[in-house]
């Protein structure tokens, strides 16, 4: 820690991919000659970023409650808006998730992106910069900038390298998110006008009036709920996933969705405890509806990608459910659920991508019996599917279990719904696996299928390894999460005494009045 | 003197009347002529105000120069009445509306008109009693507003060059008289004296 004092570690981490992108931009593109160079350079840069984030993890002190690696500089003169960075336990893991996924994505796109590879890699690296920035900043406006900045590269990735209806999907993705964000933007400006600052740590301490909190909370909710996506705002996600290229889906499901959850944790909960508390029942209700609805919809999907997309919505339902229980277990669970979903869903999308490259179909009915030709693939696919179902020992289990534990303390009724969702997930996931991997070999062309190459195998191995690590030893994450979660709960505790009576009268869901 | 009052109402009434007739006259030429008549009456009003210089310049510039060109153009075009009538029908209402708007506004303003008391101290013009108004205008135009006068010159230059640029076409092959060539022409270049033998031809 000492040697890095005063050294802009986070800035370097954030902008390393960006400079990498500039570097890649400068490499001339001659088809068939320099493509290898471009790919290698991009991979090297992404790897360096990953190493760098590991270094930060090593330097991170989980016992401290405050933000670490803080940078704070004058940025916009005239306005009291500063360039301030810093991470705590929550951000740390999202950063790690991002930095680890991007090199995997580059490897994943090694063969599948056929044209305009250079642009693709540039967009990917720029996207990484924006995502890392969003997770590291301690200033609301800066957060908004990075949050919104991710839209463009993603829009382009879906639009350029996507499937047939890519343009429709890209625009839908873009405008859903942008519309939500505008409300957030106005809310941020309003916050700034009200308090004179946009610093996240300062704002968390600011006591807002309750009527104001409601509107501001709703504004932020609009953005995060669309991004996450929550049940009524989810319609963009299946489209985007289906039309995006494999890597696009990986990033979308793996990282971008998490920004919504991160936003809830970082902004909605600490800033507006009262409003969060008031709206919690509705959010939880929506989450449950979302989980069950998405699972049911997933049951009838014929498109593999769409199925996984709907399962993502269900999983994200667990995240919001966990967050809005205001229990330590629930919060822990939701964060772990996000992390595990990050690994699992991107792994699953990679699997689908691998299949699609070979068969050129996403229709479940088109597959069958590939276990005979791709045994190795089937093994990896199986373990990822088990993880998605939430089998004990996998990453999915820890998250879902903790969320349900947290929910149980608040309302057993909701647990029933969530549990129903888990059961349904087992049904559709295993059904998918059965139809795709097992069964009779009806199509002759399957006989030409090759098993995983070295690259693909190692990629999937990495995903599966991560998954088991999370599932078997979640404490390596939970330890660092302790302090920030305590802080969130502290805000919440401050409000609780005053609020509980109102809450009880108005809502049928009875919260546990346990001292926190 | 009553005569001045009468003259004022005469000029003012004729100004309004001819302005109105300018609008409703059928033939464009008549419109132009009414416009000219309106200018003349305006000049008359200026005379009554005691600013004879402006009156004369008004006549010279507007009547003597601008309106003549108007009349030129109007006389030379033959509007296609039937087509115009159809197209104009709708547009006719707009000027009426604008007219009503401006008219009511004028009534509104003038009905409650009062000068800001401080305003009289800001007057730049010297008193008209002591010197003739040509001198007064000259004095202020070439001292206080000299720069603006120069800018006005530039505006006119721009307008002139612009008009020439826009109307000039690339010169085609045509015969032009060059007087100097004609004058400088020598006899020997034009006339060749030949001695022609009889029955031989040239």
């Amino acid at each position, binding site marked *: 820690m000492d040697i890095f004092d005063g050294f802009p570690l986070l800035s370097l981490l954030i902008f390393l991919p960006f400079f990498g992108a500039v570097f890649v931009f400068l490499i001339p593109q001659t088809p068939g000659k320099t493509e290898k160079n471009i790919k290698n350079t991009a991979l090297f840069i992404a790897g360096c970023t990953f190493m760098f984030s590991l270094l930060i993890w090593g330097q991170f002190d989980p016992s401290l409650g405050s933000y670490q690696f803080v940078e704070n500089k004058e940025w916009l003169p005239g306005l009291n808006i500063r360039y301030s960075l810093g991470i705590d336990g929550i951000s740390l893991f999202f950063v790690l998730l991002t930095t680890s996924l991007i090199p995997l994505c580059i490897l994943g796109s090694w063969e599948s992106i056929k044209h305009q590879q250079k642009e693709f890699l540039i967009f990917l690296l720029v996207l990484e910069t924006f995502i890392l920035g969003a997770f590291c900043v301690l200033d609301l406006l800066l957060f908004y900038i990075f949050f919104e900045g991710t839209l463009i590269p993603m829009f382009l990735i879906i639009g350029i390298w996507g499937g047939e209806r890519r343009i429709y999907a890209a625009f839908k993705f873009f405008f859903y998110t942008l519309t939500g964000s505008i409300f957030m933007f106005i809310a941020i400006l309003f916050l700034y006008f009200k308090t004179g600052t946009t610093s996240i740590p300062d704002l968390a301490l600011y006591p807002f009036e309750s009527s104001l909190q409601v509107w501001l909370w709703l504004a932020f909710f609009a953005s995060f709920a669309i991004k996450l996506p929550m049940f009524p705002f989810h319609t963009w996600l299946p489209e985007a996933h289906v039309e995006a290229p494999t890597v696009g889906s990986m990033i979308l499901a793996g990282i971008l969705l998490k920004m919504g959850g991160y936003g809830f944790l970082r902004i909605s909960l600490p800033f507006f405890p009262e409003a969060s508390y008031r709206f919690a029942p509705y959010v939880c209700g929506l989450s449950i509806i979302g989980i069950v609805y998405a699972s049911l919809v997933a049951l009838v999907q014929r498109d593999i990608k769409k199925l996984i997309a709907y399962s993502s919505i269900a999983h994200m339902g667990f995240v919001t459910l966990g967050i809005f229980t205001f229990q330590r277990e629930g919060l822990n669970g939701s964060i772990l659920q996000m992390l595990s979903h990050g690994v699992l869903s991107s792994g699953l999308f990679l699997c689908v991508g691998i299949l699609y490259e070979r068969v050129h179909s996403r229709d479940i009915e088109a597959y069958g019996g590939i276990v005979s030709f791709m045994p190795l693939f089937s093994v990896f696919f199986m373990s990822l599917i088990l993880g998605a179902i939430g089998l004990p020992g996998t990453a999915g289990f820890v998250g879902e279990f903790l969320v349900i534990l947290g929910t149980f303390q608040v309302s057993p009724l909701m647990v029933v719904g969530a549990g129903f969702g888990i059961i349904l997930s087992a049904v559709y996931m295993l059904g998918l696996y059965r139809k795709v991997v097992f069964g009779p070999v009806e199509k002759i062309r399957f006989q030409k299928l090759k098993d995983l190459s070295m690259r693909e195998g190692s990629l999937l191995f990495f995903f599966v390894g991560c998954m088991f690590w999370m599932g078997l030893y979640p404490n390596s994450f939970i330890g660092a999460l302790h302090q920030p979660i305590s802080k969130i709960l502290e805000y919440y505790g401050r409000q609780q005494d005053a609020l509980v009576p109102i809450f009880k009268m108005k809502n049928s869901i009875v919260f546990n009045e346990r001292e926190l | 003197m009553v005569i001045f009052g009468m003259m004022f109402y005469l000029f003012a009434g004729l100004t309004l009347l001819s302005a109105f007739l300018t609008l409703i006259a059928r033939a464009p030429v008549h419109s132009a002529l009414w416009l000219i008549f309106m200018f003349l009456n305006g000049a008359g009003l200026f005379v009554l105000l005691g600013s004879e210089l402006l009156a*004369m310049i008004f006549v010279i510039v507007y009547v003597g120069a601008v309106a*003549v060109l108007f009349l030129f153009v109007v006389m030379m075009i033959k509007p296609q009445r039937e087509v115009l009538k159809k197209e104009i029908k709708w547009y006719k209402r707009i000027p009426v509306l604008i007219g009503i708007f401006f008219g009511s506004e004028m009534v509104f303003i003038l009905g409650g008109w009062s000068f800001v008391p401080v305003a009289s101290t800001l007057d730049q013009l010297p008193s008209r009693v002591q010197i003739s108004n040509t001198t007064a205008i000259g004095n202020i135009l070439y001292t206080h507003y000299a720069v603006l006068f120069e800018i006005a010159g530039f505006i006119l230059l721009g307008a002139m060059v612009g008009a020439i640029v826009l109307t000039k076409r690339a010169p085609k092959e045509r015969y032009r008289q060059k007087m100097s060539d004609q004058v400088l022409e020598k006899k020997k270049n034009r006339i060749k004296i030949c001695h022609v033998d009889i029955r031989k031809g040239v």
Partner: protein
Amino acid sequence: MKNFFSFFYQEIQSFCGRDLLFFGEMIFKILMVILPLLLGVAFLTLFERKVIAAIQLRRGPNVVGPFGILQPFADGLKLLHKEIIIPHRANKFLFLLAPIFTFTLALSVWAVIPFGFKQSISNINVGVLYVFAVSSLSVYGLIIAGWASQSRYAFLGALRSAAQMISYEVSLGFVIVTVVLCAGSMNLQEIVLAQQKFWFVVPLFPMFFIFMVSAFAETNRAPFDLPEAETELVSGYNVEYSSMPFALFFLGEYANMILMSVLGTIFFLGGWLPPFECRPFTWLPDGAWFGMKVLILLFVFVWVRATFPRYRYDQLMRLGWKFFLPFSLIWVVLTAAFVVFLKESGSL
């Protein structure tokens, strides 16, 4: 109410007294100018014919009255007797308005002309501008006449004459500006009085030349009589006119000719001033000197007509825009600089 009536009564009284006298005086003055002027116009035609005849070694009109002196009256009576013919498709009102307009304008300029010291109908400060304004209006008479007669020839003639008059008015204006610069006033009386030391024809001789040539063009006189070039346009804008309307045009034109001579006299030849301010010259009254100078200039008009062939139209335009205008512009600048210089050095 009572106040109002008493005010009105007073006004009426003053109108009957002072104003009526004023009006009477005015009308008398106007008649004193116009009647001689019309007579002058009448005899100018005779003068012209006699002079041209003399130049061409003829006798000229010599039948009506002694030496043909009553010839103008005979011509006038003939015109009066003729029928006023109005073309079938002509705009009747404008057709008749045009000659009246022309004639009225030709007469109204004379309101400010000084015939002697303080001898003018109205002595206004902007006399020069008034003259210029009214003479610039005279274009309208021509183009209205041309347009209203609904005849191609007439219209073409009108356009020609209008273009010609406007073109030359510009350089005429600059000529007058030089005069005004030298005199330091736009009052015609003062312009004359400023020439007591020397006539402006001396320092401004080129301007005098331009003035005279422009005056030919302004009055549509030879060698610039293109609008009524008989050989191409029959008779120009007044081809459809006959009888009294035609006479009015005719009178107006000749009145303009006299006017131009008068202006030349006032601007350049010292108006009513005698050539030298000493005894034998000052015996003659102001009016006599004035009349003589005007007669000399009128003679020049006639002389030029008898001598020069007609210009071509493009040559006419070129002369106006490309020679006279730049030249007079430069001269204006020079004069202004010179006047300022003299004023600064205190010698003027």
